[in-house]
């Protein structure tokens, strides 16, 4: 049992918290006793080989959940369950962690429960067999908090190490890597020997290395562990090594640790720069999406459209309505909700855009100040209309499963929703470019923009082209709203947040040039993300604005200025 020495820091921390803080409503002495008890039990468990405890004993322990008075008592019961070493307790522990463990008020028997409408479906906590159902009032949920969830996760880590499912073993190894415990080395050694899947084996070896660092094994073992962690080279490894280095005695081990720390820090700095570039690209794609519609209405047509942001908002609300219908009527289609919302958002925003152009803007061509004020008024009307229809609070737009979570390339964390938005914005850009450059409609649009009278003389119905161009720009803003609903609030104020950024991008990139908008969006995004870590989010934005002002002083027409006689006219 003297292998428990490395755990002493944790033990003493628990003991040192007994200075009677005002937040404690549970006698401190008892808490410490429980903590130590639990601790002792956790240790015993780690030394005993996985055993099949008899079912009746397990049921007796599980039944105690019903009478646990507070979180400490529940923690203690979790410890007891884990100490049995029986893998069949996994079901009830997972349920407890998910807040799905209940006890019936009538007879204090414990069940796993799944909510179904007003009733709760009950299942046996050990074998998962159905046990009828109960009304919500008849059962009480066993409460969990974060400390309890952590305890369960650690306990499950040990229990699932020999699970048949490689994913469960991998999760177990990950948990054990993060909570190193010298007592687990033997179990890990056995698991490494039996492991057939290479990725799991690697993770197990890393978990073993982290445990070795906190053990009192000889220096040679520790050096090997340090090189394993150095090879892993991520932030978790770094934090383990840093913690180890502060306690290490001078000598070869400490030198090796410091070398590994320096090595990892160097690699991480490079990854960090890569991460910043990625964040910049991701922010740039959001800017591009928001600005691309404006690049048409403002850039190509020259209309200062202050209601542009509200078109984005309408797109986002269309997504909300679509998801709402899908949720209530066709729940199976949820992952397709965005694909369904895209054309609808385009149509809704496009139609509103068309109405604005026909109703207001066409009377104001050539009068920029009046256009600005009129479209501003329109934006307020649209906002208040949406507020009246949908209410002032945020509306929930869910992420389809393929847009949730993330993955890692090396040390680069990439979230799916951001990745898809980058892809989507580039796709929209490509389509728009194609429409402008390769279709007859695009040709007419450019002709009208460059020389209205000449185009008119050639038989182009210029008012018609104007209306459709404005509708196209608005429609594009609408589909941008579908994408932005995935990362931002869907509220009546959604559009306001993007209007200034959009104008900034279009002006910076060069009015009337789609490529300019693309380059402008990404350079502003990346610039912003490189400034942010040093200057902070608030100052970073100010700096970007100042830089743009300076840039516009130098090049009033932006990055890619249109040249030619038409522009001067």
């Amino acid at each position, binding site marked *: 049992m003297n292998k428990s020495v490395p755990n002493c820091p944790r033990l003493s921390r*628990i003991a040192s*918290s007994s200075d009677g*803080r005002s*937040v*404690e*409503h549970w006698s401190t002495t008892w*808490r410490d006793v429980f*903590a130590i008890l639990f601790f002792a039990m956790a240790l015993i468990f780690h030394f005993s080989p996985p055993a099949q405890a008899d079912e009746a004993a397990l049921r007796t322990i599980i039944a105690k959940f019903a009478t646990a008075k507070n*979180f400490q008592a529940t923690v203690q019961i979790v410890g007891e369950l884990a100490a049995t070493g029986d893998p069949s307790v996994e079901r009830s522990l997972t349920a407890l962690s998910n*807040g799905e463990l209940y006890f019936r008020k009538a007879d204090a028997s414990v069940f796993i429960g799944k909510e179904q409408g007003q009733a709760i479906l009950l299942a046996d906590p050990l074998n998962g067999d159905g046990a009828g159902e109960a009304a919500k009032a008849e059962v009480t949920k066993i*409460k969990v*908090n*974060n*400390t309890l*969830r*952590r305890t369960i*996760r650690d306990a499950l880590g040990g229990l699932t190490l020999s699970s048949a499912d490689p994913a469960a073993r991998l999760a177990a190894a990950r948990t054990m890597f993060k909570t190193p415990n010298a007592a687990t080395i033997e179990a890990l050694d056995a698991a490494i020997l039996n492991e057939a899947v290479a990725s799991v084996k690697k993770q197990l070896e890393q978990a073993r290395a982290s445990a070795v660092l906190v053990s009192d094994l000889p220096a040679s073992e520790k050096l090997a562990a340090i090189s394993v962690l150095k090879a892993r080279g991520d*932030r*978790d490894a*770094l*934090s383990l090594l*840093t*913690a180890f280095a502060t306690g290490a005695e001078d000598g070869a081990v400490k030198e090796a640790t410091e070398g590994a720390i320096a090595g990892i820090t160097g690699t991480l700095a490079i990854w960090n720069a890569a991460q910043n570039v990625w*964040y910049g690209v*991701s*922010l740039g794609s*959001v800017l591009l999406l928001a600005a691309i519609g404006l690049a048409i209405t403002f850039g190509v047509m020259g209309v200062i459209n202050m209601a542009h942001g509200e078109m984005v908002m309408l797109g986002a609300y269309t997504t909300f309505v679509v998801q709402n219908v899908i949720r209530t009527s066709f729940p199976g289609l949820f992952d397709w909700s965005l694909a369904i919302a895209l054309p609808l958002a385009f149509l809704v925003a496009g139609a509103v855009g068309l109405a604005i152009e026909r109703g207001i803007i066409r009377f104001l061509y050539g009068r920029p100040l009046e256009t600005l004020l009129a479209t*501003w008024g329109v934006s*307020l009307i649209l*906002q208040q209309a949406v*507020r009246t229809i949908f*209410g002032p*609070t*945020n*509306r*929930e737009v869910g*992420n389809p499963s393929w847009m*949730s*979570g*993330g993955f890692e390339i090396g040390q680069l*964390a990439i*979230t*799916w*929703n*951001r990745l898809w938005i980058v892809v989507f914005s580039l796709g929209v850009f490509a389509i728009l470019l194609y429409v402008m450059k390769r279709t007859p409609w695009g040709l007419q649009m450019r002709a009208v923009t460059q020389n209205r009278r000449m185009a008119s003389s050639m038989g182009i119905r210029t008012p018609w082209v104007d209306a459709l161009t404005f509708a196209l720009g608005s429609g594009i803003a609408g589909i941008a709203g579908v994408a932005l609903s995935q*990362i*931002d*609030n869907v*509220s009546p*104020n959604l559009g*306001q*947040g993007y209007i200034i950024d959009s104008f900034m991008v279009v002006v910076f990139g060069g009015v009337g040039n789609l490529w300019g908008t693309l380059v402008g969006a990404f350079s502003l995004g990346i610039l912003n*993300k490189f400034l*942010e*870590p040093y200057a902070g*989010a*608030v100052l970073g*934005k*100010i700096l970007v*604005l100042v830089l743009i002002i300076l840039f516009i002083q130098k090049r009033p027409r932006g990055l890619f200025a249109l040249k030619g006689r038409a522009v001067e006219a």
Partner: protein
Amino acid sequence: MRGNFSTYTNFMAAAAITASMSFSAPAIAQEETIKVGILHSLSGTMAISETTLKDTMLFLIDEQNKKGGLLGKKLEAVVVDPASDWPLFAEKARELIEKDKVAAVFGCWTSVSRKSVLPVFDELNSLLFYPVQYEGEESQRNVFYTGAAPNQQAIPAVEYLMSEDGGSVERWVLAGTDYVYPQTTNKILQAYLESKGVAKEDIMVNYTPFGHSDWQTIVTDIKNFGSAGKKTAVVSTINGDANVPFYKELGNQGIKAEDIPVVAFSVGEEELAGLDTAPLVGHLTAWNYFQSVDTPENTDFIAKWQEYTKNPKRVTNDPMEAHVIGFNMWVKAVEKAGATDADAVIDSIIGVSVPNLSGGFSTMMPNHHITKPVLIGEIQADGQMETVWQTSGLVVGDEWSDYLPDSKDLIADWRAPLSCGNFNVATGKCGGKGIN
């Protein structure tokens, strides 16, 4: 930048909408009524939070009238819309007091809006009931603070996280929106943490603009800060809309509550309504009231509220409870004084106790703050909070923080003969900080 812009927009919004939106409830002919002013934004950025409070006040007034009104007269609500525009708050407050002759005003949400109306209430000697948790460092004769002071929300939350129950946190990220409430609260928290022996390098302070939506860098920073081998928590004073993308980013980057819990002071049931809360389960909020509080008073209130709004899913939240308490205190004080004029109510309201919705009684203290229980709740998958910890008794609101060097000697006591909002116990003089 967006902040500036939205103020600008709000100005325009105000100009465009005020004319049509600011209406008075139809006056009841021939009958003398007591008018109650409601000063909450119904348009603009703050409408998201404040509209509910207007509905709450209409509901409370309606309930009171069903009970026979006050002093034998019916109550009449006067609703105005300051449109999230801070200077307009002052204008609208003046209109309520001078033109509509209201007996008391219930309103404001942001600290800026409160600061903007203070001189008006002082000059015209009227009453303001302010229902939102705020940064403290203020006590005015004409204002009653029914929301939480920092010691009724922020400090207990941090104490909880430091305790073993809360996970023995040793490293802190103080993240907030860049304005007065987060900055003052974070200053107090920083001083408090340092007084508890937390090293400076274990505290990271981060501010973001209003409505910030790109949280990638900051969430990564938090992740890195949290991987230094010490238990880390985030204390969030992030305001309003910016919370949704923040929590979404946390979920996507895989930060779980077991690893780095976030405790938020501005996120309530209303804010969570716009969010898929499944990835947030286990993150914390600190308030003085949750809809899930299981008391007969609360069950009764929720039932009546949902019946009044004809929406069986309508949620309740902490600032609503503050209005309930504030309104009932005002009613009781008016009954006690037998009059509605400000001076009489200011004298009679101190010491008035009314039931709060979490099963106890809240009392108006001489510093114009009230006593409240503090609850720590965990966000649940259904968007509700589940209380995981609460103070055993009530906490008295402390207007001048004990942790800031220039306010620790100040106290407020509006009873005669002291009658001072910033009495310095060290010099024995009234005055110093906080005179408006």
